[in-house]
């Protein structure tokens, strides 16, 4: 019997480049996607941010090294300034394909993003329903395959379906980003079992995306074995986004450490934590 309790989802590894070597904390701390080490396991979504000034402060407080942007028409409102903020903070840009409903739209958007931002990375979103914003599995897989074949580093936003996650990995995705619950809903992780399954069985990093409501949801995601967490709305639309960004930074770190430390097994009945021997006769 090892002194280390096993967990329902196993322990040692989660995702590509993520093998935990407890003797080497530095290696264990690296979050690597497609061979690129990212300094933080908190991926920041910029959607809903109130201003570029708030964004700058949120980026700093979050410690994030990767942030998403959307691609939209140039207009007189001065779009584009967001890039300057991210670059000045040394944050890598992860363009998304938000708003795309077909593989064709998503592929063209990814190509435009590559041209605009000089990056092969894309957070692939292909939405199937306007009310829930849930992914369209068929279009998503089609777009993922096309983009992988064209040399993109594809991080697909997907349902919490372990089989679809595996299919996305098989067509060459560099990570998978299963949802906790619908985008912007704040409902947290509705199916922790599926997230744990995906994390356990995936050989690419698993980034929990969408549905996070507050910091403890991010901790849970990490405890379930995710390699990172992506958060937008829960930070940007909170009452104090900068404070919340700091809370998420701590929450992701706490979940990561707790996962590595190994939770105790669940028991139906109590197990005394004080010694039973040596009780005085009273």
């Amino acid at each position: 019997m090892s002194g280390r309790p096993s967990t329902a989802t196993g322990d040692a590894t989660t995702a590509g480049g993520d093998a935990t070597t407890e003797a080497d904390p530095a290696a264990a701390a690296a979050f690597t996607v497609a061979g690129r080490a990212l300094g933080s396991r908190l991926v920041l979504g910029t959607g809903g941010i109130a201003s570029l000034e708030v964004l700058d402060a949120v980026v700093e407080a979050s410690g994030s090294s990767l942030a998403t942007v959307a691609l939209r028409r140039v207009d007189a409102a001065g779009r584009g300034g967001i890039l300057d903020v991210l670059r000045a903070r040394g944050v890598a840009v992860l363009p998304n394909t938000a708003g795309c409903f077909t593989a064709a739209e998503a592929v063209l958007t990814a190509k435009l993003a590559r041209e605009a931002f000089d990056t092969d990375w894309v957070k692939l979103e292909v939405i199937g329903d306007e009310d829930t914003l849930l992914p369209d599995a068929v279009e998503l897989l089609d777009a993922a395959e096309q983009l992988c074949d064209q040399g993109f580093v594809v991080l697909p936003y997907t349902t919490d379906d372990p089989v679809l996650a595996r299919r996305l990995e098989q067509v060459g995705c560099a990570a998978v980003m299963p949802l906790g619950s619908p985008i912007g809903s704040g409902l947290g992780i509705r199916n922790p079992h599926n997230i744990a399954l995906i994390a356990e069985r995936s050989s690419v990093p698993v980034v929990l995306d969408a549905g996070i409501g507050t910091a403890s949801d991010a901790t849970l995601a990490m405890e379930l074995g995710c390699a990172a967490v992506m958060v937008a709305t829960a930070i940007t639309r909170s009452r104090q986004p900068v404070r919340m960004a700091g809370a998420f930074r701590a929450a992701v770190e706490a979940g990561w450490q707790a996962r590595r430390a190994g939770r105790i097994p669940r028991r139906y009945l109590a197990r005394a934590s004080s010694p039973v021997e040596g009780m005085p006769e009273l």
Partner: protein
Amino acid sequence: MGETPVQEVPGVGASPSPSQVPSDLGVVMNGHEFVVAPGATVADLVRTWCPSPDGIAVARNREVVPRSQWGSTPLAAGDVVEIVTAAAGG
């Protein structure tokens, strides 16, 4: 070929009406109709519309026009052009 090769069609910005646009000069850019001078290129459109070409990408008729080809890609009547950049999202 005037000094401004790209001009928004007067009065049609809000509700474009193709009949008001000379068919040999009209293009649609980001949902608005424009008249362009013969020989005008994608680069002319970008220059007119964007303070800086940094962080910009262009699709013409649903095909990406690489930055290196903006100056050598002439606009044709009826072209549908999208010029995009980063916005908060995701």
